């Protein structure tokens, strides 16, 4: 009897450990998360549209239907990542995710200094290099430090109905994602 109670107790402690391990490891192990979906469906530095007018992803099922959503995948091994987009006059927001699905940074059109979006994602060492020798191209950019090398940036732009399409289409066309070697 004591043996049974003891084993049950050890089993419960084991269950707690298994529970914690699964919850903490899910971001690394999940085959279905948004990073895997984007990695499988887009090329590096190539803007891909995620909403219902773009590629068909599971991640897109739950997105706000009144927004156009565009993602760019980056790899900091190739140099710092920069994303630029022109002023659209309407609301847009940007979020940077790493390959575990953690949000690294987010902003909207009111937060950035100029109306145009200019975002630079760099590893800590690359930030250090740019602080020592600032690059003129990135003078107006918002700097984001990412601890992990791979990830993606997601840009959302307000598109409530089709009358917004000309503006949104133009905006999307002029989004530029690139890597710059330091």
């Amino acid at each position, binding site marked *: 009897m004591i043996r049974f109670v003891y084993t049950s107790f050890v089993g*419960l402690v084991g269950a707690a450990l298994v529970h914690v391990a699964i919850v903490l490891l899910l971001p690394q192990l999940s085959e279905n998360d948004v990073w895997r979906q984007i990695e499988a469906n887009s090329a590096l530095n190539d803007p891909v549209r995620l909403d219902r007018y773009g590629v068909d992803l599971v991640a897109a099922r739950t997105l706000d239907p009144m927004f156009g959503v565009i993602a760019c995948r980056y790899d900091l091994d190739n140099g710092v990542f920069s994303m630029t987009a022109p002023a659209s006059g309407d609301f847009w927001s940007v979020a940077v995710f790493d390959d575990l699905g953690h949000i690294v*940074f987010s902003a909207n059109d009111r937060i950035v200094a100029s109306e145009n979006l200019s975002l630079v994602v760099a590893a800590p060492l690359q930030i250090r290099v740019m602080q020592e020798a600032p690059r003129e191209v990135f003078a107006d950019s918002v700097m984001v430090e990412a601890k992990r090398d791979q990830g993606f940036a997601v840009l959302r732009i307000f598109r*409530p109905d089709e009358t917004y399409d000309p503006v949104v289409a133009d905006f999307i066309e002029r989004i530029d994602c690139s890597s710059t070697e330091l």
Partner: protein
Amino acid sequence: MIRDLSTFLYGVALALVLGIGSATWATGNLPFLGTLAINDWHANPAIGTNNPDPYSQAYFSRSGGLPLAAAEGLAFVRRIDDDGETLNARCTYVIEGDTPGARLWTLYVLRDDAPLASPREGVPVALHSGSILRFRDGDFDIRIAPLPQPRNWLFAGASGPFALALSLYDTAIGSDTGLADLRMPAVRKLGCVND
């Protein structure tokens, strides 16, 4: 020897079954901890921040969704009316009041956790802050009904349960100090067809 082995197997089985079962259960839905609930509208502000709780993170890893980050906005979901009954498209509801301060908001109908597609052109399944009529004080009323309604109309399907998603964009609500009361619109049932 057999007894040792069976005890050992029992312990291992208990750990695996309970551990995997509870983890699956806990990550299948957004966690209750850390939710922000205003008038039965629920949101998870933690997911957009620097240190999201592991359960929210695991939920998004598993479901493959793309959450709104803190500076982007906050998405609220509501599944019940003011009387606590599940929203049903057979019934007519009125959404009254105003939202907390936000640059813009969108309101759309969720069926099975995905936005409802419009069955025909001109049938509104989604509204936004710039597309609605308001009263003189800035408050609004939106009627959810299977048939067209005066003023603001939202279509939620012909029948069956649905949920409402209200996403506030560029809002400071996630970092609210509690100095002012946060207002979210009420959802009142007006009546049902075939009742």
